[in-house]
């Protein structure tokens, strides 16, 4: 069985890679390359998979919420993903890369018997990125 819990955070970013020229970056990333960055209200869905325990739960909500708050939300909410998140340094803060980063941040302190099954991030209502963990 899978339980999915939804969280929200607001953050800014700018998509730009040093591997490309100014013109190439502008062409590739379009508005997302505007020099001072821009922001989104991200939605983060965390899915946990495992059997139901004696309490009738896959995972305790409060413990899951505390982990996500401590490991992720407190680090990214109202932050600039290019500047404020050490784990993303040297990477372009696309939502693809952010999903891998958030998975790693959660796995680092994951002590629940149930496993982290999926990280899904909506950058806007129209763009969603989904990472099934192994």
């Amino acid at each position, binding site marked *: *069985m*899978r*339980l*999915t*819990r*939804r*969280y929200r955070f607001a953050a800014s970013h700018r998509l730009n890679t040093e591997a490309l020229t100014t013109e190439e970056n502008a062409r590739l990333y379009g508005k997302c390359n505007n020099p001072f960055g821009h922001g989104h209200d991200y939605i983060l869905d965390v899915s946990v998979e495992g059997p*139901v325990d004696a*309490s*009738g*739960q*896959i995972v*305790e*909500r*409060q413990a899951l919420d505390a982990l996500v708050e401590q490991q992720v939300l407190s680090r990214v909410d109202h932050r600039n993903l290019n500047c404020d998140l050490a784990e993303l340094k040297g990477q372009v803060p696309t939502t693809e890369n952010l999903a891998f980063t958030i998975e790693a941040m959660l796995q680092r302190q994951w002590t629940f018997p149930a496993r982290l099954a999926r990280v899904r991030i909506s950058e806007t209502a129209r763009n969603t990125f989904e990472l099934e963990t192994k």
Partner: protein
Amino acid sequence: MLLTRKAEFSASHVCRNPALSEEQNRALYGVNANPHGHGHNYVLEVTIEGEPDPVTGMVFDLRELKEIINAEVVNPMDHRFLNHEVPPFDRTIPTTENIAVEIWKRLENRIALPNARLQNVRLYETTDLYVDFGGER
């Protein structure tokens, strides 16, 4: 092919194990353990997997599916206090997980055709929390 039908019901519940102390219940269930209960607008998504019948062109008759969901889930659970009024929640704690399992049990045998079977029960307790149950596999 997958076919999904949505239904809603509003119900109250309390997640509390009488064998545990107040502190233990609080640690396990948080505000869901508040003794007099509280309610949610549950949203249920029932997904059926199958192939369209060659004559009707349908995986499952949607009108019949609606009637089954109403008879097994919505009518008995809507505007009820699950712990007091809907067995087995007098003895099983009505967590979202346990409600999803109960809904699966109620629907599984009623959605069983040669060409179609119950594939998933998704139950939203709120817009920010849901469980998926695909049976014991």
